[in-house]
Structure formats: structure tokens, C-alpha cells
């Protein structure tokens, strides 16, 4: 960094010498929550902080984490996608079913194309026709679910000869002891993080979400940016579906049900605003990890999975409330 950058930061320091605790908590509060939670859970269980458990959690969160990266783009751009859960089911079913027909490689391509197509359709409705993304994708949630059900006839689909294919590696394999889904998640995190913070596209995304009108007045092609976020989210959902399919070597209609809720909660919990224009991939990672460790911790403490739904309800409301309240400077509207 150049010398003038230094003077700038000096300027800033001199203007606010006192450490502002409220500001720190506002900025990094989520990290404190995360640490407290980990300490709390590890005090109550023995195996929580072991390396194996850590890897297990990472593997568990990787699918949702990948889609959360797409959803982060979506929310920064100021839109929503509620159809990702259904899309996970659809792509998982497609990849499994086509595996035995066309082979694993073609099956993966088909699943990815399906994810991109559905995303493009959503993006067309929201970006070009300017429809409300919440309701459109809410409708699409059911349309996709129904298509999946029609496709499978409500049956499980599975790969018949599981020993004879490399396909299971994606979901089950390890490289240097690290599960492959975690590696894929890591790669996507890096790509998405870098694109968001280093590229023109990332800047445009923040602008479009932050102020669509001013973006238009700066010559930014808002329609195409919005359109692209849906394609990207569709793509991440497809990758998630493929990994899930590979891990289970089978799929069924309700595989991804409720994912949209977990994913939006994670992204918002990380601190990405529902109003668009702010957020980041590292924040999303933290949100995803908190939810992942929470769910793992709950299970280790002997709670059934659905207890977590209730906790997540509170977390979602709490996280959004904090965001809304900090925007308006008051707790209550």
C-alpha cells in the first residue's frame, strides 16, 4: 500500500482514538456468539472439539455452504431465491437417475444444466419481467418440487452398481484426509469471495443491491446483474444436489426440503443484509459454521434435529432484527 493510504488511516485513528465497544460488538458480535457457542457446547460434550468431529461438521455444512455462497450473491444483489431447496432435490434426482443411463459425467452435466436453466428462468421472471422475487421463487419452489415428484413418481432413485463407478468419490472421497465436499466448498468459497471483492462484477453486484437507481444512472446493466445472480444460485444448488446425490448414491423428492430456510438463515446470521448492498463471503462462512456447529452440538447433546428448527427461528428473527434495528438506529419500529 502507498504512503498516502497510511496518512488516511492516521486521520481516521486520530479522529476516533477511544475504543468503541459498541462498534466492535456490532461489527464482530457474530464472532463472539460463535466462540461462546463453541465453548458452551464443548463444555457439555466430550467429543465436540475433536478433529474428527470438526471434519464431520465441515462435511455436513459443505452442501448448504456452497449454496449459501450463491445466496450471498443473491441477497447482496437485493433479491431472494426460495426455490433452492427444491432445486437441490431436482438436481440430485437427475444426477442419480441419469448416472445409470448416460454415465456419471453426462449425468453431472445434465444436473448442472438443469440448475442453470431453472436459475435462468427465475432470473428472467425477476430480472426482465421485474416480478417480485420472493413470491416468484416461492411459486417455483412448488413447481420444481412437483416436477421432481412427477419425474420420480415419488420413488427413490438410486445408482444400481455402486461399486463400479467413480461417482461416489465426489460425496464420499477424501484428499489428504479432507473430505472432497469440504474441498469443493473451500474452492467455491475462495472463488466466490475473490470474485465478489476483486472483480467488476462484484462491485456491480454491491451497487445494484445498494442503490438500483444510482446504478442505472451509472450505466450499470442492472437487469443482467440480477439475471446472473439467479443463474449463479441455480448453479450452486446444482453442485449441492450433485454432492448430495453422490454421498447418498440415491435421491428422493424431499432431499433438499427446507434448505432455503437454513441457507437464508446462515447468510443473514453472518451479517449479510436482507436489503441488499452489503455482506461478504467470509461472513457467510461464519454464519454457515455457526449453524453447522449448532446442529452438530445439539445432536451431540442428545437433542433431536428438529429442536434446532426452533432455535433457528429465534436466530433468524434475532439476526434480521439486529440488521433492521441498526439501519434505523432504533430497536423498535
Amino acid at each position, binding site marked *: *500500500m*502507498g504512503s*498516502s*493510504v497510511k496518512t*488516511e*488511516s492516521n*486521520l*481516521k485513528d486520530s*479522529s476516533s482514538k477511544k475504543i468503541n465497544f459498541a462498534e466492535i460488538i456490532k461489527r464482530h458480535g457474530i464472532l463472539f456468539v460463535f466462540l461462546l457457542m463453541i465453548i458452551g457446547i464443548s463444555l457439555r460434550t466430550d467429543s465436540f472439539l475433536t478433529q474428527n468431529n470438526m471434519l464431520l461438521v465441515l462435511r455436513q455444512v459443505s452442501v448448504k455452504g456452497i449454496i449459501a455462497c450463491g445466496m450471498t450473491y443473491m441477497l447482496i444483489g437485493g433479491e431472494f431465491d426460495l426455490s433452492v431447496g427444491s432445486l437441490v432435490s431436482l438436481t440430485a434426482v437427475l444426477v442419480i437417475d441419469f448416472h445409470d443411463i448416460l454415465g456419471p459425467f453426462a449425468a453431472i452435466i445434465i444436473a448442472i444444466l438443469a440448475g442453470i436453466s431453472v436459475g435462468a428462468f427465475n432470473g428472467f421472471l425477476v430480472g426482465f419481467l421485474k416480478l417480485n422475487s420472493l413470491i416468484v421463487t416461492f411459486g417455483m419452489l412448488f413447481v420444481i418440487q412437483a416436477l421432481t415428484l412427477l419425474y420420480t413418481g415419488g420413488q427413490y432413485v438410486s445408482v444400481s452398481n455402486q461399486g463400479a463407478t467413480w461417482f461416489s468419490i465426489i460425496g464420499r472421497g477424501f484428499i489428504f484426509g479432507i473430505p472432497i465436499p469440504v474441498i469443493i466448498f473451500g474452492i467455491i468459497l475462495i472463488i466466490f469471495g475473490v*470474485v465478489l471483492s*476483486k*472483480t*467488476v*462484477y462484484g*462491485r456491480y453486484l*454491491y*451497487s445494484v443491491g*445498494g*442503490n438500483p*437507481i*444510482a*446504478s*442505472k*444512472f*451509472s*450505466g*450499470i*446493466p442492472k437487469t443482467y446483474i440480477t439475471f446472473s445472480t439467479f443463474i449463479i444460485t441455480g448453479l450452486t444448488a446444482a453442485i449441492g444436489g450433485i454432492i448430495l446425490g453422490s454421498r447418498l448414491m440415491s435421491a428422493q423428492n424431499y432431499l433438499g426440503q427446507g434448505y432455503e430456510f437454513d441457507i437464508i438463515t446462515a447468510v443473514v446470521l453472518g451479517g449479510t443484509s436482507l436489503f441488499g*448492498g*452489503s455482506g461478504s463471503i467470509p461472513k457467510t462462512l461464519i454464519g454457515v459454521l455457526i449453524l453447522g456447529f449448532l446442529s452438530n452440538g445439539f445432536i451431540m447433546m442428545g437433542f433431536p434435529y428438529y429442536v434446532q428448527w426452533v432455535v433457528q427461528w429465534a436466530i433468524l428473527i434475532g439476526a434480521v432484527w439486529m440488521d433492521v434495528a441498526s439501519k434505523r438506529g432504533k430497536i423498535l419500529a
Partner: protein
Amino acid sequence: MKENECILEMRNITKTFPGVKALDKVNFEVKKGEVHALVGENGAGKSTLMKVLSGIHSPSEGEIIYQGKKVEFAGPLDAKAKGVVLIHQELSLVDEMTVAENIFLGDLPRNKFGFIDWKGLNKRSKELLERLECEFEPTELVGRLSIARQQMVEIARGLTQDVNIVVFDEPTASLTQEEEKVLFENINRLREQGTAIVYISHRLNEIFQISDRITVLRDGEMTGLLNTAETNECELTSLMIGRDLEDHLDFEKRGRDEIGKEVLKVEGLSKDGLFNDISFSIHEGEVLGLSGLVGAGRSELAETIFGVRKADSGKIFLEGDEIKVGDANKSVDLGIGFVPENRKEQGLILGRSVLDNLSLAKIRNLNRYGFIKGREEKLIYQDYQDKLDIKTPSSKQQVKNLSGGNQQKVIMAKWLCINPKLLILDEPTVGIDVGTKAEIHKLIRKLAAAGIAVLVISSEMPEVMGVSDRILTMYHGEITGEFYAEEATEEKLIKGITGIEAGACKVG
């Protein structure tokens, strides 16, 4: 009650917002049975004054005397309860509900079972409508009424209690001429009934048609209190937008014969209801002023040239090549920059950093394979921060924390760094402190000297006259005059922007 009794007096009202003095010792009074017009350009302080009156803002200094007593209303509802009704340009009506319901919205009459007394509601509404001589039924849906009639509903709503003052804020903005006539008849009727009327507008012909007295505001200051019968449109316009020539505005201008090659040519550009058959051109190194009052279609024209609006017909040429109208993305590629009128809504991504905003247009050319060249971006930032003297603690500062003047500089820098061929500036100095204003004026001349074609839109006469080589006047969506700097006088321009025939006007 006496005819010329002052029912409302606002004395020495000053209102400061952080960094801006919106009102500076303004006096305003209304008498019973008079229509008192409040005029001024955008940002002159008309709305702020009325917000102070209704209690939305409390004045920093000064007092309000209403019916002989000092008052401070708690808000529009409180004001209404005490007889002061404000009718906004954007009507506060529910389209889906009936006239009667809208009149009594929030206070629907109920019968003894707690159900809405529709009969009574309609009867009482009918009475009110008859008092205003309205020819529509209380049972009609408001969404089905013309705007003029909707305004009458709003007035009728005010009459559910005793009303002493009715404030009309730009009431004719969306009215047809026929509807305007109806409105004026109704205003006259209210006046005859002894109601005091405050009429806010920037349309001069209406003001002469309807008002008894006029108070003129400019930049938060009161510049005149006139009897309508004793003044004319030219004097009024001069009070609204004229100003003593500031020292720094004494620039050297280009004459008729020093003009460079053509940069932009607009041919027959029309958009229904906004502007009609506009043709002009701007040349290299020329500052073209576009002068007109609010509503003349200036901003819309500029937005169309830049491409955020589409036109019905007409062509735009940049350096001889026709460009597609309505594609802002392409315009930026071609080197057109646009500093819009509304900084916060149209100009800036408020939640992002100064750096992000400054480089927002440039980054399309400042990348390799989509990756922003961070170091070069930083250099450009430092260059322009230095050149324009943008005061910010850091490049990472959120732009919303900057002062208005510095925000404007960021937007200017955003366009300057793409090395534009054409720069359009829409009201570049509105709401900006005097010092920064002078800087921006100097900058405009400097840009022209560097060969950029600059289109400056402004409703401030001295600004237009001070910086432009050539000036176009616009009135009612049409170009009404063209003047070179050496031949432009305030008188000539005012004729152009008020649409008055030559010779009918003498500026005092």
C-alpha cells in the same frame, strides 16, 4: 372578523439541518380570505417552511403565531384538528376506497352497534361535497376520479372540522388544464368563504391567475413579498432565480467563431408529455447552459440523452455516429458522463465506500479478465481526490458520511475519470455550500478548456450565465431560445424560460 386580519404569521423562521441552512429568517403571513402564493425553485425552502408550519420540523429559530397565539403543531394531524389543512402534491388517498371513506378515513362514523354507519357517512360526505360544489357521489371509488376531483376529496377531508387555512403544495403538477380550472374555481370559493389559502407553486401563470399576494423564496431566504396586481412574471422570475453575479463567475467565454467540432447532436428528440422536438448540438470545449424552470423537461431531456429514459422519437449523434437512445450502459462506454440532480437517490451508492463510488464508472475499463486493477484504481482515486480536493478521512469511508459538497465531488470524479467526451451536469450546485459551489464552477470551465463538451442544467440564472459559452432556454418541453454568452442578458433568458413573447417584459 375583519377582512385583512392575519390568521397566520411565521416570524423569522430559521431551520438548519446538519451542514445546510434550509431556511434563513423567513417571514410569512396569510390573511383571511386571501390566496397567498409561495414561490421558489426546487430547494428554495417552500416545503421545509410548510413542514415547519405543520410541525414535522420544529424551527431552529423563530415563532409561529396562529389566530393571535403562539403555537407549535405536533404534526399534520394536530394541525388539521386546529384548522390548518395541508394538501400535498402526492395525495394521501386510498384508491381502492370510496370518496366518503377517504373523507372520514381514520374516523369513520359508527352506529350504536359499532358498525360503520354507511348512510350517515355518505350523507355527511354529500354535504361536504355540496359545500365545495363537487359533482360526484360519495360512493364513488377514489381511484376512479380525476386528479382534480381527488384533490377536492382531500379538501373535503379538511372540512370535516373547522378549517381556517388550506395549504396547496404544487396542486397542479399532474392536472390537465380543464382540471386546473375546476381547482381554481374551488379555491376561489374557499376564498370567498373566508378561508386563508397558501398556494405553493413554481408555475408563474397560475400564480398570477389565482393569488392575491406572493412571497418569493430563494435558497432558503425570502427575496420578496409582492402584491400580485403590482408585479409581473419577469420580476418574479428574477426574484426566484436571479442573483448578484458572484465574483468568481467572471470567466472568459468562447465566442461564436471559436467553436470546436461537434460532439453531440440531438435531432427532433420527443417524449410525450415531457419534451417535444428538441434539436441542438454541443461542441468540443464548449459549456452549453440549459436554463429553464422546474417542470420544463430539462432533467428528463438530460436523462434521455444519457440513456436512462427512452424517447418516443428522435436521434442522438455522438461525434457524428448515431447512438441508441435508452442504453446508459453503452453511453458510458462511449464517454458520456451524467451527474444527476438527486445526489442521494440517483448519484451515489450511499452504503459503499468513497473509493467504490468514485471508480464505479471507470472500473469497466480498469480490469483484466474482470479483475479490478487495484493499484491503478487507488492511483486514480488519489489523483482525483487531490485534483478535486475531496475531503474524506479515508478511501474506505462510507460515502454517506461525507458532506453534500464532497459527495458531489465524488460523483464529478466518477465521471471525470472515464475521460468523458460529454459531461452532463444537472443542477450541479443545488444544496452545496458557497465555497464548493465556486470550486465546481471553476472546474466546469477547466473541463471545457480541456476539450470536454459540457451541458449544464441549472435554474440559477447567474450560474448559467456565469459558466456557459452558449445558453438554451427551455419552457414547457420546448427550446425557446439560444444565446451566446456575449449577447445573453437576464431579461432575454427570463423571456425564454417563462415563455413570454419578446417585448412584454421589463425586469426591474
